C-alpha cells in the first residue's frame, strides 16, 4: 500500500525540539502559525519577533529570520522592521505578561497606528517563564507565586480583557479571541490567524489573535486537567469571538 502524508509538521518550523513543558499550548500555537505561513507561501519573506517569556525561544523554532525584542517591546520592534521593509510579513508572538503588562503601551499604540503587522497573543493567565507569578490576566481568586492567597480584586484589580480594549481602536483590522483546546478549536484558530496575516498582506491594518492557553507547570495541573480548567474558567472570563474583522472573506 502507498501512503500519503495527511498530517505532517509544517516547513516553517525548524526541526529543533521545543523547550516547552509537556502539554504546553505554546507548541500547538507555534505549529499552526507555521502552517499558516506555509499555506500563505510567505516563509521566505517573513520576519518574526519573539518576546521575553517562555516563547523567547520561538525565534529558534520558526524557520524564518527572527529576533528577540526586549520584554514587552515586540510591537515597536516589529514596527521598525515593517517600516523599513513594508514588503515583508512581520509578526510578533507574545505572552500575557509581555503584551498585557509591561508592553501595554506598545501594543495599544502599534494597534492605534494600524501597523501592518500581526500579533499572536498567548494568554495563559500567568507568567510562565519566571515561575508562575500573577499576570494581568490572572483570574480572580487564582493562586500564583505573587498572589499566594489568591488574586484579590481589591488589591490587584480584575483580569484585563485585551481584546475588548483593543476593539476600541480604529487601526485594528482583525481581532479575535480563541483557544486550542480541541482539534476543532485548533482548526478554527488557524483560520483566524490566517485572517490576521491577511489583514497585513492586504494592507488593511493591524491584526491580533488572542489564544487562551494552558500552563500546566505553573497551574499545577496535568496537561489534560489544564484543558478542562481552561474550558471551565478562562472561557467564562474571556469570551471567545471575532471582535473586529475588516478583512472580509478569504479563500
Amino acid at each position, binding site marked *: 500500500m502507498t501512503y500519503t502524508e495527511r498530517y505532517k509538521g509544517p516547513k516553517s518550523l525548524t526541526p529543533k525540539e521545543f*523547550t516547552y*513543558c509537556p502539554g504546553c499550548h505554546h507548541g500547538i500555537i507555534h505549529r499552526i502559525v507555521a502552517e499558516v505561513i506555509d499555506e500563505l507561501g510567505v516563509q521566505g519573506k517573513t520576519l518574526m519577533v519573539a518576546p521575553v517569556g*517562555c516563547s523567547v525561544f520561538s525565534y529558534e523554532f520558526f524557520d524564518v529570520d527572527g529576533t528577540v525584542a526586549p520584554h514587552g517591546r515586540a510591537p515597536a520592534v516589529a514596527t521598525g522592521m515593517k517600516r523599513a521593509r513594508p514588503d515583508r510579513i512581520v509578526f510578533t508572538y507574545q505572552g500575557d505578561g509581555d503584551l498585557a503588562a509591561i508592553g501595554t503601551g506598545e501594543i495599544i499604540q502599534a494597534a492605534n497606528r494600524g501597523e501592518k503587522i500581526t500579533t499572536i497573543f498567548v494568554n495563559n493567565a500567568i507568567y510562565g*517563564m519566571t515561575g508562575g507569578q500573577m499576570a494581568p490576566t490572572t483570574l480572580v481568586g487564582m493562586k500564583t507565586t505573587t498572589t499566594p492567597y489568591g488574586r484579590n480584586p481589591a488589591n490587584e484589580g480584575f483580569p484585563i480583557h485585551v481584546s475588548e480594549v483593543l476593539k476600541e481602536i480604529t487601526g485594528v483590522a482583525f481581532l479575535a479571541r480563541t483557544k486550542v483546546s480541541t482539534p476543532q478549536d485548533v482548526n478554527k484558530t488557524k483560520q483566524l490567524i490566517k485572517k490576521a496575516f491577511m489583514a497585513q498582506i492586504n494592507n488593511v491594518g493591524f491584526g491580533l489573535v488572542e489564544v487562551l492557553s494552558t500552563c500546566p*507547570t505553573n497551574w499545577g495541573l496535568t496537561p489534560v486537567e489544564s484543558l478542562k480548567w481552561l474550558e471551565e474558567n478562562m472561557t467564562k472570563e474571556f469570551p471567545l469571538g471575532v471582535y473586529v474583522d475588516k478583512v472580509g472573506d478569504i479563500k
Partner: protein
Amino acid sequence: MKYSGLIAAGFGGQGVMLLGQLLSYAAMLDGKFTTWLPSYGPEMRGGTANCTVVISDEYIASPVIDAPTELLAFNLPSMNKFVSQVIKGGSLIINSSVVESVPERKDIKIFRIPANDIAEKLGNIKVQNMVMMGAFLHVSNIVSMDAVQHAFEHKLTGTKAKLIDLNMKAIESGMVAAGK
C-alpha cells in the same frame, strides 16, 4: 578544623537541591558555618541541577568550590562532569541504581549506593536522595544525627510530620549501605 565541601549533582527532580538544603540546615543546627549554593543548568526545565554545600567550623570564605571533598553523583553526566575535581583522598558517592559505571580514579574513596532500590524497599522511591544523604553523613561524619532529626522536625510540620520517620529510616539505610 572540620571542613566538608560537597557537590551533589543530578537531574532536576531527583531531590538534589533539597538534600543540600537539609544538610546545610542540619549543619546550622549543629552550630557550624555552612553555605548552600544552587546551580541550575541553562535549560529552563528538566536538565541538570547541582548544588554546593560547605560545612565548616570556621567562617566560610568561598561558597564556590572547585575541589569538593565529597561528590554525590545522582546520574552519569553529573559524575563525569565533577569527578575529576574531587580532592585526593576525597569521596565519591554514586547512586548505583542509576549509574552503572565507576570512574578510573584510585586516589579517592568510592561508595556505590543503590539508593533507588533501597528507597523502593522503604516504600517510597522519592527518598532515594535521603539514602544518599545518609551515605554522605556516614562518610563525612560532619553533622550529627540529632541535628538531622531536628532539621526534619523544622521542615516537615503539620500533615507532613508523619514523613519524618520514613526520611530518617532512609538516612539510616544510607549510612548502613555506605558502611558496608
